[in-house]
């Protein structure tokens, strides 16, 4: 079954290390304080590998992939 995923960040855990924006700039940029701004859209399959790496590399484990409803 094909999974429809998007990124969410746990703001209470995120310290603004910026690893996500470094590893996955296609969907993550940083605001002027250094916290991630996420592209809310579904992650296309060709970018899935980058999303997974960003999630796994977050030093605060603050980045998550969740199912897009519907």
């Amino acid at each position, binding site marked *: 079954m094909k999974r429809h995923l998007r990124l969410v960040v746990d*703001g209470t855990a995120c310290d603004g290390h910026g690893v996500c924006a470094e590893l996955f700039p296609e969907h993550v940029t940083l605001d002027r304080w250094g*916290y991630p701004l996420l592209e809310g859209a579904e992650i296309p399959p060709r970018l899935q590998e980058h999303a997974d790496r960003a999630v796994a590399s977050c030093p605060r484990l603050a980045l998550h992939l969740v199912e897009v409803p519907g």
Partner: protein
Amino acid sequence: MRAAVLSPNQHLPAASEVPRLLLGLDPDGRPVGLEEHLSRWGAMPWQRTRMTLIDDLASSGLVGHGGAWFPVATKWRSIRGGGLRRPVVVANDAEGEPASSKDELLMACLPHLVLDGASAAATALDAGRVIVYAPRHLVPIVGSAVAARRRRGFDPVDIEVVESADTFISGQESAVVSALNRNAPLPTFQGKTPIRTRGVGGRPTLVQNVETLAHVALVARFGPAWFRGIGSDAHPGTMLLTVHGRGPGPRIVESPLGARLGDVLGLSAGVAGRYRGVLLGGYGGGWLPAQTALDLPVIEQAARHHGTSLGAGVVVLLPAEACPLAESARVVRYLDQQKAGQCGPCVNGLGELADLCTALAVQPARLSGHLQPLLDTCALVEGRGACRHPDGAARFVRSALRVFGDEVTAHLRGGPCAQVGAPSVLPGLRKIDLGARSRPVRGRR
């Protein structure tokens, strides 16, 4: 849909009249005891509650009155389907908003109506625990109400009482659960495991505002058709409003949904000029021009159409003499002080918003005529917190800039107005100092 079959009920109150929740209020403000409560409203139909209450709540159209306006039946169904473990029901009386006191009134004066609703929820959801989360000064009242019920074996599940934190955000659902799990009373990230699945003690948890539970107690007794006997088809029922600026102290008013706010407040259209503006929904809500507010139907969608929210029912009438920008700056400073301090955008952004709003009020030259930094910071905090605190702050700031455009222009062009140093007329904000000096008043600029 199943038709409601009700036995003839000698206690059935008129469906089309207000007050409804507040019908049994003691004129001296004493808590209504269990005997008096039952002689007014009748016994709780536990069997019917277990079988049909959730469907009845769906038919009734009851929505939550803690501020989120979420359909009650939808919320309960999401919890019932939450797993094999028996859920926990929390009656949420943590009313952190300093401008709101309707939940306090309900719990202080009509505790059994709220407790009936909590027990009805526990019955319908087959919950294993019921917890009332209430501020310290109400714990004795709730405690003796619970003791009276315990003596009669009234409730299917024993009711626990836990003292709430007294911060602005203490009533946020995940903050309530966090406190009940003996962690800090702060919101938690809900994106992975929401409290409806893993809440108090890891169990599926319903956190429901106490006014909502009082409505539930009446739906359980009198059914959805009775509930829909007031309000409009799309927006049935009533809601409690906490009104400031009509006489000394706050007044609690029960309004039919859909009624014209001016009528509910006893204000004709001609008196709008007495007020600089009207704050709806409290400090996470937003301002409306006085005329717009008086003509507004008491419906959440109407409030949202104008960029604000009824929230938990706060209405503050701002006198024409007040400086709305100074009052707004105090609100934003308060919201900054009351943030949980967990999420980066909120930690950084709310301080900026408070500084910029304070500058606009007392030192507008610092803005060099530009409002864009304020709007940019609003956009940077919106939707980026674990809770909606930053969203409320941004909505409040945007509403102030929109509704008080004339005052904004006057401040930017000519400096702060003469009223800017006057003491705050908003509830709970007197201690917030903007650093403004009062100047001799020679009329408004």
